[in-house]
């Protein structure tokens, strides 16, 4: 597996150190590894989103999983990067989905997704509609609203009170689902930075071997999370 750009890599770390220094580093808290930070989120160059769209995604993620209270927020865990990459990839393109017509986008929701648009197209078409709605209602774009008004606007979107064409009706569901995915997916997808969301809820990530822990009831599992690339939280 190739090293991920901007991520501290155990291999790179060892490569760059004398053996003795590497051994000494074992004693250093694993936290120290994440000091070699990625460029700030604001400097991330989205591959799917336009800068305007990305500003909206940043602001929306910041309300869906905010920084305040216990646990990391969506920005700290770089969820917007995850969403950008997903929309650029197979998910955004509906690569696995059956996308032949005729389409009936206003069908009974129990029959599932029926829009002719891919998820990436839904984001692209719906963001300006929602931004315009925010302008009309509040005189500002979403990112410029205060937190409370942003929450109210997102609630309106969630409840279907923002007029969207049926083709776009899954917009809110996509953002919320993709935000939670980015919070909890393996860090190699761009979000869950530093495995912070896993550490927060207590999920040990890609350990996958617990035999002697099965029968230890009501005890705290002692090991920190690891990810698929082999980093330890």
């Amino acid at each position: 597996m190739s090293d991920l750009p901007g991520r501290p890599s155990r291999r790179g770390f060892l490569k760059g150190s004398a053996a003795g220094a590497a051994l000494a580093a074992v004693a250093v808290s694993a936290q120290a590894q994440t000091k070699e930070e990625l460029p700030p989120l604001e400097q991330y160059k989205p591959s799917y989103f336009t800068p305007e769209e990305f500003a909206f995604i940043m602001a929306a993620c910041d309300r869906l999983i905010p920084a305040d209270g216990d646990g990391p927020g969506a920005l700290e865990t770089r969820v917007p990067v995850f969403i950008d990459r997903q929309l650029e990839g197979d998910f955004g393109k509906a690569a696995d989905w059956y996308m032949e017509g005729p389409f009936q986008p206003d069908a009974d929701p129990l029959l599932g997704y029926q829009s002719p648009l891919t998820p990436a197209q839904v984001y692209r078409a719906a963001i300006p509609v929602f931004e315009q709605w925010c302008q009309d209602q509040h005189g500002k774009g979403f990112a410029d609203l205060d937190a409370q008004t942003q929450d109210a606007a997102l609630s309106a979107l969630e409840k279907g009170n923002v007029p969207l064409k049926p083709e776009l009706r899954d917009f809110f569901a996509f953002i919320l689902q993709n935000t939670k995915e980015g919070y909890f997916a393996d860090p190699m997808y761009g979000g869950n930075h530093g495995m912070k969301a896993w550490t927060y809820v207590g999920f040990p990530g890609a350990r996958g071997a617990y035999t002697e822990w099965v029968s230890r009831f009501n005890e705290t599992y002692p090991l920190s999370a690891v990810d698929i690339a082999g980093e330890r939280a």
Partner: protein
Amino acid sequence: MARTDPKKDVVIIGLGWTGAILGMEMAKEGLEVLALERGEDRDTIPDFQYPGVIDELKYAIRYGFMQKPRNSTLTIRHGVNDTALPYRHLGSFLPGNGVGGAGIHWNGQTWRTQPAELRLKSYVEENFGADIIPEDMQIQDWGVTYEELEPYYDRFEKLLGISGKAGNLNGEIQEGGNPFEGPRSNEYPNPPLANTYDSELFAEAARKKGLHPFPRPAANASRAYTNEYDMQLGPCNYCGFCERFGCLNYSKASPQTCVLGALKRMPNFSYKTKAEVLKIEKAADGKTAKGVTYFDDNTGEEVFQPADLVLVCAYSLHNVHLLLLSEIGQPYDPATGEGVVGRNYCYQMTGGTSLYFKDKKFNPFIGTGAEGMSIDDYSISQIDFAKEGFIGGSYITGGHTGGRPIGQLSTPPGTPKWGKGWKEAAGAWYNHKMSIGSHGSNMSYRDCYLDLDPTYKDTHGRPLMRMTFNWKPNDIKMTQFMKGKIEDVAASMNPDQMASGYKKEGSQYDTTVYQSTHNVGGAVMGTDPKTSVINRYLQSWDCHNVFVMGASAFPQNTQYNPTGPLGALAYWAVDALRNDYLKNPRPLM
């Protein structure tokens, strides 16, 4: 024009659980066997190896190992007067694709049907009278009894190395097993898995209520094991990435771990991948098939593969689709009640209650696909249908399969879906939730069926199959009955909070939420060609050299997961083929 390949003795459509078993047993007969699998080749190494395979996003959320609707799907509607729409992305059920089929990414909960379930119509009539059967319900007997199937259940359990505890050994009730199961000739091949905390708590509470908890039979090995084909399983390590994933540890029974390694060494067996069968070709006599036509994705051409025997092992839904496209058997018409192909499609009625305990840590990430403690006190054979006003039953389980945070984290009732409230609840409750689930039967009805869609086509230009299905009052009453029973046990455990999710009056079938990949019926077995597609040996009534495996044979769904019975039926059909049909090919009934 289609290429024609040299003739084979046997062609198998699909290389999942049933295809692998039939392939092995036909190869052992010395026949030239070719299996055609539409998907990719797969094996433990490299496809299921650590750590790449335990990627929740790729496999559990984006369905990496499963059927891609772009290549294969169906349309769904609730009623005969509705327009069916495509199942555009996976949701309610997740058919497999590729070598091993859904058998690589199943849980491994491996049950036997109860004796009463295999002759359900007779059982109901004898015990409660025919008039309790609702007018639109089409339940029937399977045409094979539990006593006849028992040796084949036994063999299938030994093939998979099932971990469990017998409850009825040759009629004698065994402490700690399921006292309501049919008599079994042998103990399970492996002892039960160790219990997780939640299973233990549920079992304790159930026992206090006078119920009879026992370990759920699991195809996750509890110890090192070697099966009849010299295939080996190692003990499961509760990795928590079981269902939806291939096993990283040679512990979950799958076609790969239990059959294919040995089968690939048979010189008279071969298989092709990326080879999707488009049609079973009928011979000029109209009474047999002469082979199959498939699309060879490796060369981009259609191929006619002649064969003397055609074994349809493509998964229940695809079995029915292939029969409809091949015009083998008369398609079912719900208006007249005539025809059989597509008749009696059924699903599985599931529900559950979540319990949240502030002071208990469950470590939900420690889990396996089939571990859990179950009760069968409210099973089909234990319920007075006349008194309760429904036909059916459930098994109930306390346990869990994993704690994967995207898909398996849940928060107590009243938690906001997003924002600070959601985030804090996710952190506070992730480790403190357990659940008790009901896994119940679903009866067959006149207007729940499969046929060809008039509008939508697949990539080969063939009509998609159309599913017409909805929940019926009988089965909703059943699940509501289970809700009452489960909530009673759950309340006795004193959780801080509790939340229930069961279908209720007016609930419609939701295609977007995963319920189970237990699609059954549509090519049902029986003893009367007017109400079945295949006879009791799984042989087509219309083309005697076509045998159809899988859960499409079930005349209505049982209260259990389907692979135990469909595995037993596969071995049952193997014996009919070996001892009778191959010696003298003809209709066996």
